[in-house]
């Protein structure tokens, strides 16, 4: 199914922003919030994994219901999971379209990767502290 993804800050993301190697940061940053009716249509429940694909790439996240979101709009807090989907094109402004990313979402049996593994996919070398 196709959705529009928007991003923003959350208190939990901010609280763990200096501990990006930890599970609480991964859980918050890889959480995709959506309207419960959209979850019903996708046949997923809270905590289920979904593969989200955008112009910039594809990443696995976990679903959380959020009745405050309108149908068709999903929210992911800013971070490496949301940015795995964003296109690097800035239309000559310097700023990518972080707030309006068209994505497709499908249920998966895969698990969200930790941040270090995401960075390995980018060509990095995980450092475990």
């Amino acid at each position: 199914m196709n959705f529009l993804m928007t991003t923003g800050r959350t208190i939990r993301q901010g609280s763990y922003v200096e501990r990006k190697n930890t599970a609480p940061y991964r859980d918050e940053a890889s959480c995709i919030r959506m309207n419960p009716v959209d979850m019903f249509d996708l046949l997923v429940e809270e905590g289920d994994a979904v593969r989200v694909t955008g112009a910039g790439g594809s990443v696995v996240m976990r679903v959380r219901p959020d009745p405050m979101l309108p149908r068709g709009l999903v929210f992911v807090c800013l971070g490496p999971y949301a940015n795995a989907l964003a296109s690097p094109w800035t239309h000559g402004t310097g700023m990518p379209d972080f707030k309006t990313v068209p994505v497709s979402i499908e249920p998966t049996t895969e698990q969200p990767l930790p941040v270090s593994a995401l960075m390995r996919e980018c060509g990095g070398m995980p450092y475990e502290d």
Partner: protein
Amino acid sequence: MRIEDVVCPFCGCLCDDLVVSVEGTKVLSVENGCTLATEKFTGDHRLAHPIRRTGGAWEKTTYDDAIRETAEILLDAERPLLYGWSGTFVEAQTLGVHMAELLGAVIDNTSTVCHGPSIMAIQEVGHPGCTLGQVKNRADVIVYWGANPIEAHPRHMSRYTTFTDGFFVKSAFRERKVIVVDIRETDSSEIADEFVKVTPGGDYAVLTALRMIVRGKGDLVPATVSGVTREQLFRVAEICLSARFGAIFFGLGLTMSRGKSKNIRNAIELTEELNRHTKFTISPMRGHWNVYGSNEVFTWITGYPYAVDFSRGIAFYNPGETTSVDLLRRKECDACLVVASDPGAHFPRACAEHLASIPTVQIDPHVNATTHLSRIQIPVAVTGIDAEGTAYRMDGVPIRTRKLFSTGYPDDVAVLGRVYSLVKEAKG
């Protein structure tokens, strides 16, 4: 030991009323701070020593070797990028700009993926802003547009707007009206007197409709504009026009969505229209602690606020060309120094991939996403905790932060100063 009037080193609010209890180098408690402040002060996840990557493994290294190798990487590069700067103090930012000039590098700060479009709009039409003190003491109408302060700036409402009384606003709860404009309901919209829900990408049209109403052309406004009814637009315009002093605060909901700098320009021009009837101001909700300071420092040295390219031997600025995301997308830079920020987490993946493919050095107290992409990381003291320096609040007020204790970590100026000396020596 109990230390009063401590400045928070997290977001652009720079709350300066914290009371922090410390024992040796450990923070025991934080009073008056929000959750973000408490986590910042009590967090104990520093990188213990400099690290470097050799082949397929990380190894411990010394400050001397890490600093020397950093200077060598920058000197060897033809198109180095010096990125970040928002989490450190202005004295370190100053060193960064001078080093960029010596190297012929591009230097950019985090406003490039934050309020860069706001700055572009301000360069076009100016900034009718004011300090947060003015807002606290005078504003009876507050507008949060594309911003969610309860999550991003948790004390903004309690220190300056919704929940605090001011000199001319004796009872904020009764006298201040709050309007929230967003594409989704948030905790902030829940407490608004008026919540304006805009369809994604529709902010520019809604701003234009409000300008038409304020200019007396409301009869031309259609029944709905980007999901907002004509009746609500007139109601919002009336609240703004009847304000004694109004303050608009806007967030990344405007800078990152369709229209970008043009959204901000339209919001500033709405503010200008409102000023023909009453007093109105507009200000960006700056997020990353001293990002405002980085714009100030860059501007007072080079004339430009971010994305400054010294490769021509003079300062050159052209957002879309000299901005970090564009440079990395084009795979143009061949080395990167990251200071006090985390582009690995906050740039699109294609940019992270290029950072991993070139020698990237990070100067930062903590392990973050960029660590995994880097060749070297040099840990430093945290400004506002074990280092002192000057930072700018989101309204442009400079505040001197306090040092609570010494940990033995060098601060950003100590590390950058040594890299700068090596670069200067090599450049002659």
